[in-house]
């Protein structure tokens, strides 16, 4: 069996990060739980944001988790894909906006 850096089973052991630093781990998970509760944004909307960010930060654990979370909430395939595109658009925009810097530099160096 081939080894990879990411093992899907590790997601189930996420809570174990508290073993080496119980106070920080505890606070992180409390914060994490609180963030995703119903608030000014619905839990459904937050799930879609989390799915988009999961793709942008390229976290395979998060993608698995929030795809499933979205399905549980009845979020449609179209909604999920649009959320990922929103993340991708920001990510590609963040790359492309640097082209202005390139153009500025080019202009400065051009004779």
């Amino acid at each position, binding site marked *: 069996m081939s080894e990879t850096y990411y093992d899907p089973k590790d997601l189930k052991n996420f809570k174990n990060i508290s073993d080496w630093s119980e106070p920080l781990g505890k606070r992180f998970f409390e914060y994490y739980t609180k963030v995703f509760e*119903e608030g000014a944004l619905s839990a459904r909307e937050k799930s879609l944001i989390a799915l988009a960010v999961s793709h942008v930060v390229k976290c395979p654990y998060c993608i698995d988790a929030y795809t499933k*979370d979205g*399905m*549980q*909430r*009845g979020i449609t395939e179209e909604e999920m894909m649009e959320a990922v595109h929103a993340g991708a658009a920001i990510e590609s925009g963040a790359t492309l906006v640097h082209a202005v810097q390139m153009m500025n530099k080019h202009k400065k160096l051009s004779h």
Partner: protein
Amino acid sequence: MKPLSLHRSKHLFSDPKKQLEFLSKGAFETGELPPFEKMLDRHKYQLRTSELEILQVNLGYMCNQTCAHCHVDAGPDRKEIMQSETIDQVLIALDRLKPKTLDLTGGAPEMNPEFKRLVQGARKTGVQDIIVRSNLTILESNTNFKTYPDFFKEQQIHVVSSLPHYTLKTTDRQRGEGVFSKSILALKRLNELGYGIDKELKLDLVYNPSGAFLPADQKALEADFKKKLLEGFGVQFNELFCITNLPISRFLDYLISSENYEDYMQALVEAFNPATLDGLMCRNTLSVGYDGRVYDCDFNQMLAMPITGPYRKLSDFLTAENYKNRSIRLHQHCYGCTAGAGSSCGGSIS
């Protein structure tokens, strides 16, 4: 062409014993996951019947649909159907046992030729709530069944209908091509009659996940369903019941073939919620098979797990006292009813 039932295709899991054997193996055999009975022992809980409130009657396994998740393995190729003599026994039992609710299920219960006689007879016994679990499409299937919504209204039947999603794609994937559009037509007609609008005409929908995952919060899903069905189709309903898919029959086969079985069972066990135990439907329901045999629930019926004690048939129950304080038959599929907010024929428990 409609898919065949497991029964008709002579699938391994058409034999309930094979399903139970499978559910005893794997992580439950190695001790990685506790069998359901052991989980109850850990919580020092004994699951026993309380008072009989619901008589759930399966009128037959015949159905006009062959849904991918059906725990009954129902379909057009199933011929098992409740006969007149057994229907008579149900009417006698209603009079004798006085449950609050008669819950008619199938298959498509409307396909039993004596459906109307049973309902009319049941009304005379004074049972408070008569539920029909309608798949909706049967109400659009021919001129005869198109008259049934009027009959429902006349008899003040409480309609509980399956609709796994408010989109065509997801619903048709689970329940068959064309099901969503026909379901919407039937829902609109029920609305026109006052169902889901008038106080006396209850129309509830049943959501079950379209895949290997557990349902989310019932109230949040209900709000989404109400908004989308009203905005998209002008359809109204009362409540949404979320039901977890239990790992039996076609859904068990799907879990195994899609390599989701182990993760799904682990998810069910991890989501075990002792707060659901007091409200489990097996504690106040008696499930009656098409042949008059009795079970703790519809799932135990499909797994051919008879109740404990001396009684086997509905006609054996002479008084409601016979129902009380009986030990309930358990197996690993019971984790489906105790996961998260719990699951029953009336949706979430806690």
